[in-house]
């Protein structure tokens, strides 16, 4: 614990650590307004996705839809689930499972000839 609370002489104000701690605190516990902004962003991305659905479907539309999906996924996992600010161990655990799932099922679908290039 001593490394988390470096010893400072009595009466001495450790400005560097105070600013760092305040920034970390804000990142770990963002204000409610930040969550509302994130949700608005997600709503806009969903609206764009639905708009794209009504456009003529082609490979470009599909790729854009998949990119938007990945973006929404990352925003929810990173900010709402706090994975961006949490322990790297948890990040590795979840991303490991995700990569395993995507790899296994991509290979499976490729074997069944689902994707036509």
């Amino acid at each position, binding site marked *: 614990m001593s490394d988390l609370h470096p010893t400072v002489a009595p009466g001495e104000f450790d400005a560097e650590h105070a600013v760092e701690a305040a920034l970390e605190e804000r990142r770990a516990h963002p204000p409610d307004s930040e969550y509302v902004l*994130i949700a608005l962003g997600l709503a806009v991305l969903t609206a764009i996705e639905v708009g794209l659905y009504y456009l003529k479907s082609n490979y470009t539309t599909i790729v854009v839809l998949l990119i938007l999906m990945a973006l929404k996924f990352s925003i929810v996992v990173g900010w709402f689930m706090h994975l961006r600010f949490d322990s790297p161990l948890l990040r590795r655990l979840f991303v490991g499972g995700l990569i395993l799932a995507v790899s296994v*099922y991509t290979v499976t679908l490729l074997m069944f000839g689902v994707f036509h290039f």
Partner: protein
Amino acid sequence: MADTLPAAHAHADAHHATSTGISNEKMAMWAFLASDCLLFGALISTYILYRHKAVAGPTPHSLYDIPFTSVSSFVLLMSSLSMALAVAAIQRGDERRLRVWLSTTALLGSVFIGGQIYEFTSFIRRGMTIKTNVTSGAFFVLTGFHGVHVTLGILMLLSLVSLSIRGKIPQAKAEVVEIAGLYWHFVDIVWIIIFTVIYLIP
């Protein structure tokens, strides 16, 4: 390990007597979510594999009501916002707002489930049941499994509201709400994938 954590979380996790500094409950939830990726990955892949294999009856794609499902998706996304606000409230020690946001999340989740029941009923009335063809079977199993996850989440949220009313979730136990929140956000990200891959991509 503690020195690899951001300072704020190191403070929060300092009381956990584990070698990782992370509570066993939180670690278990993340491990469960990582394994659930494999379950939903299997169900989504099965649907993709069978989406054009129907030989009889209507397919889900011919019956989708995209505007309706878009509204359902929006409702579920907003429930993630209210869940995040619930976690933030208890981390500040605001138990009243915790109950308000948890109840809002449960309500939005119930609206989503109501929408799913309406969609299923509408499909069945128009001749597509789980046994109609392989595509409809894969569709009902996938979305049904997701619906079960959401329903369990709603029960979890209502239990938390009940515990909070009895004063059993003080600020010191904020992690309980955070863990329930992780589960809730997970069902939301699964729906983000289902909505795009199953409904929007032809």
